[in-house]
């Protein structure tokens, strides 16, 4: 048992942390969003150069990481800084396109964004719901909540080759160029500042049919859940730090509000729960390479806990700040939005609580 990072991961953490605190701040991020841009291309290139994307892939895939703790180290730092650049798509699709060495090379270099086009309007959080069809060599259907869909050069599209709408069997995965005939992508901004899209597929001929079906998709989403959870942890650490500073600096009725016992005690609970969140991320990272049932049980346990703790951290941090915590100008509101919206990506507290119960009973 060892809770220390390896030397390599610590170096990556340090250099990424330094890079972000040098190059990235709340104001610049706000300006990018206000200008209607999905993210800062220069910054994304810088992240790629630093090896952030390479850390998400194993050595035999051309990267230098790829394990659970590699993902958690990277995404905690991204979350701490509030990064909206498209690193997460590489996690969601990386394990699915791994056999395409050229594409992976482009992803690692930051030259290609490949994202997952899987969710459909009626799926809610259920991974097994797919109505997009693959037949006669073409894809037809519509996908929603496609992260960075409008900035991607490729999509990994799930489509049904057999079974009914909810069957796990019969789901296949395809690589689709975003500029292929019949692909229509509509872009929008999300509440957390990330860029989302809807994708309509009208008789689209895919570039390739990928190896692996539902099981591969489930693993990719497990990795995405770990990345999101670590990102939420980083954002919580920032929200916590802002709040601790505020409690020390802000005076009311002549004394720092951090001296008020009611706030002290509530802050203590926040501090405890952020440690719980850190442990939950460690648990998931540490079981990412375990057997499927163990891994998925941790996926749901961790995502449930992150959602609950996230709401508590957001609500308490805003409340302790008062009005200022609700303003767009102040960084807290951005962390608050990101943490909250992470509960809506890849399954919320209720979804994962129910799934944890089913998995514990051997039923999912």
């Amino acid at each position, binding site marked *: 048992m060892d809770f220390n990072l390896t030397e390599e991961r610590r170096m990556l953490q340090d250099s990424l942390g330094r890079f972000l605190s040098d190059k990235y701040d709340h104001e610049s991020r706000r300006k990018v969003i206000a200008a209607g841009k999905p993210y800062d291309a220069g910054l994304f290139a810088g992240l790629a150069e630093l090896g952030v994307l390479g850390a998400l892939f194993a050595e035999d895939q051309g990267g230098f990481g790829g394990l659970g703790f590699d993902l958690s180290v990277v995404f905690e730092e991204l979350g701490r800084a509030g990064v909206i650049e498209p690193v997460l798509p590489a996690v969601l699709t990386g394990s699915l396109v791994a056999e395409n060495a050229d594409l992976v090379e482009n992803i690692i270099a930051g030259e290609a964004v490949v994202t997952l086009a899987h*969710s459909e*309007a*009626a799926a*809610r*959080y*259920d991974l097994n719901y797919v109505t997009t069809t693959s037949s006669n060599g073409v894809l037809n259907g519509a996908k*929603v*909540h496609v992260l960075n869909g409008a900035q991607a050069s490729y999509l990994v599209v799930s489509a049904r080759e057999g079974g009914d709408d*909810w069957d796990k069997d019969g789901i296949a995965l395809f690589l689709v160029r975003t500029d292929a005939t019949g692909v229509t992508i509509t872009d*929008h*901004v*999300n*509440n*957390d500042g990330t860029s*989302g899209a*809807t994708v309509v597929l009208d008789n689209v001929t895919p570039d390739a049919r990928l190896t692996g079906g539902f099981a591969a998709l489930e693993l990719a989403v497990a990795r995405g859940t770990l990345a999101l959870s670590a990102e939420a942890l980083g954002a919580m650490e920032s929200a916590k730090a802002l709040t601790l500073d505020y409690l020390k600096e*802000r005076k*009311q*009725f002549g004394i720092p509000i951090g001296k*008020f016992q*009611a*706030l002290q005690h509530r802050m203590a609970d926040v501090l405890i729960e952020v440690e719980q969140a850190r442990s939950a991320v460690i648990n998931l990272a540490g079981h990412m390479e375990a057997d499927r049932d163990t891994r998925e049980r941790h996926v749901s346990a961790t995502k449930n806990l992150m959602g609950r703790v996230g*709401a508590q951290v957001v*609500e308490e941090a*805003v*409340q302790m700040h*008062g*009005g200022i*915590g*609700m*303003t*767009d*100008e102040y960084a807290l*509101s951005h962390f*608050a*939005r990101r943490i*909250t*919206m992470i*509960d*809506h*990506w890849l399954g*919320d*507290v*209720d*979804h994962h*609580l*129910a799934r944890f119960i089913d998995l514990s009973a051997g039923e999912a």
Partner: protein
Amino acid sequence: MDLNYTDEQQAFRAEVRDWLAETLPREMSEKVRLGKRLTKQDSESWHAMLNARGWLAPNWPKEYGGAEWDAVQRQIFEDECCRAHAPRIVPFGLSMLAPVLMAFGSEEQCQRFLPRILSGEDWWCQGYSEPGAGSDLAAVKTRAVRDGDNYVVNGQKTWTTLGQHADWIFCLVRTDPDVKKQEGISFLLIDMKTPGVTVRPIVLVDGGAEVNEVFFDDVRVPAENLVGEENKGWTYAKYLLTHERTNIAGVGFSNAALQTVKDVAAKVHAGGKPLAQNPHFAARVAQVEIDLMAMATTNLRVVSAAAKGQAPGAESSMLKVKGTVIRQELTSLLRRAVGPDALPFQADYLEGGDNAEMMGPEHAATSAPGYFNNRKLSIFGGSNEVQRTIITKAIMGL
């Protein structure tokens, strides 16, 4: 003990309900129901409809054009308005300034301002909070210095709700810096068009700009705009805070919000079944519904005592805390009900644009911004922390 409304009260409810059904424009109630933002024109036009019916000012005496309803009637009216998804009446002139003018203003001030509040000619906003003061309202730094027939005002107010639409602002200003902080405050009425007044919108976490900073830079205000006596403003402010607390429990809002959550949960599917049938989600909804059933009665107990002239003490603080806890839980349930469709930020839709194409189901667009925006409920109007201190101290007699 009798939980039933009297025949008279039931007739009143029916009258209000019928009138709302006839009068409230469908596009306006749809905006409210879907949580979209109202324009200035929406507010003004609803204000005018209520004024035409004589129902604009429930708690004003008849001599000033008010309805002079008792507390139970006011509650019934509120409930019906919420149920019909009527816009909320902008309260600053009607329920906040007006009672202060009637109690402490001069006859001239009443004659000058009250009719213009009713007619909608003057839109008022509130200049209480200042940067860095938070719940410590008596920490007023904005200075007003007497200079002949004028006060010269310098300073800054913040969190001024809908200040961007306002013609006038009522302000707490410091007229004596050398005494105990509560004793050197005055209550001043300032025309927003006076040179030196600047309004800067504050963009909030939900992307909207309903609050503002208001800056005063050598603003000259006629001394006749002073309400009551100089340096007695704190007394008037406290009086106003009591009046601000009418309908503090927000039972009507919560009932409407609960219905919205249920409607969404009935339509949205999870795992192939309506979310409403998901036991975990159903349990959350049932829990808050049970709490709301009890709070509605707690509220009626207070209202009913108030109708008999008993002044509410710690009760209004209790209703504020429980009311906001329930309302915030409902906004949280709504965003959870909407699920992944709460992700997109649909600015055009929120602003009420009709031709904006909506993504996802009804209420999807407003669920996350509504959750974020309503964090304010436990912060503004005396934070829940302040209320909790009041409650225990009052009941312990500490």
